[in-house]
């Protein structure tokens, strides 16, 4: 597997993503600066978390229009798997590769916490190694993680099984109590129609080492390396 991690001014999970990928899969990803106009052949592109361009205008707005994203969008449309984490998810909605938008958390607070997620989609390179209905724990760290889309789009995501992850309680119950940010239908991550793009607010790259509090993110990276080998 050849992997790349995009780096914007203000990204702060680019190194974490690279380290997680390397540690779990042995693959050393290439780092792709936001002004690159050509990128090498890749089997996976990670758009990492952070505060690209200081979250100015809207989270991810400027990053989504940067030169490298024209390349990434082209690759995405040609079927290259793309994983957008946190700010990466915001960027994917801003550039139209994923539907909907991420707005300010209901509480107006920046939330940094370990939360529980229910895996609700399979048949994709990202979450298939978990079982449907599995409850996993990953950290979130965001202020704009409240997923919104039109009712018809949410219904379509449901019907097509494209809601990959939902906020839940430790027993897997999906309720308003287990919704940290107000996201519609507790959505924490969604797939594109072809299931080659995953955008997710939680941070799997921060959950690959027991010293840092959890290893539930390992499965995702390990599976990517297996299916994209």
């Amino acid at each position, binding site marked *: 597997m050849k992997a790349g991690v995009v780096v914007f001014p203000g990204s702060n999970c680019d190194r974490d993503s690279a380290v997680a990928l390397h540690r779990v899969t042995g693959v050393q990803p290439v780092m792709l600066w936001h002004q690159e106009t050509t990128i090498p052949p890749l089997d996976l592109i990670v758009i990492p978390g952070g505060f690209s361009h200081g979250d100015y*205008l809207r989270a991810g*707005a*400027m990053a989504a229009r940067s030169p490298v994203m024209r390349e990434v969008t082209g690759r995405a449309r040609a079927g290259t798997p793309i994983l957008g984490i946190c700010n990466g998810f915001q960027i994917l909605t801003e550039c139209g590769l994923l539907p909907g*938008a991420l*707005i300010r*958390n*209901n509480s107006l607070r920046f939330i940094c916490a370990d939360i529980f997620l229910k895996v609700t989609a399979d048949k994709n390179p990202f979450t298939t190694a978990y079982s449907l209905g599995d409850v996993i724990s990953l950290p979130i760290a965001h202020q704009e993680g*409240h997923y*919104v889309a039109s009712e018809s789009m949410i219904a379509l995501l449901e019907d097509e099984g494209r809601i990959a992850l939902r906020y839940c309680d430790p027993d897997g119950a999906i309720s308003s109590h287990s919704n940290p940010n107000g996201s519609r239908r507790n959505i924490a991550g969604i797939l594109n129609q072809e299931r080659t793009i995953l955008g997710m607010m939680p941070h799997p790259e921060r959950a690959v080492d027991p010293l840092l509090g959890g290893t539930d993110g390992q499965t995702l990276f390990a599976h990517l390396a297996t299916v994209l080998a």
Partner: protein
Amino acid sequence: MIARIRILLKPGILDPQGKAIANSLADLGFTGVESVRQGKIIEVNLDQSDPVAARQSIEDMCEKLLANPVMEEYQIEIDLSQKYQKISKETMSKKNK
């Protein structure tokens, strides 16, 4: 000319900032505040004298960057009373001092 773009979250999209402001106004004793919405204003200092062309170009900017049509709506105001001002690098650095 100056183009002013007013951007608000679409009706139906919960505006937690507006809600927080409304609650705070109620705490201060203001009555009759049904709801508050908070948005942003962007001013574009545009080297263009034709208001129709200016509006068209600003609309294009809104669709491509300034607003996110999934969650926001926008209104454009073309202000002909304010002339385009070229800001020299010297003026900028003085401003920053």
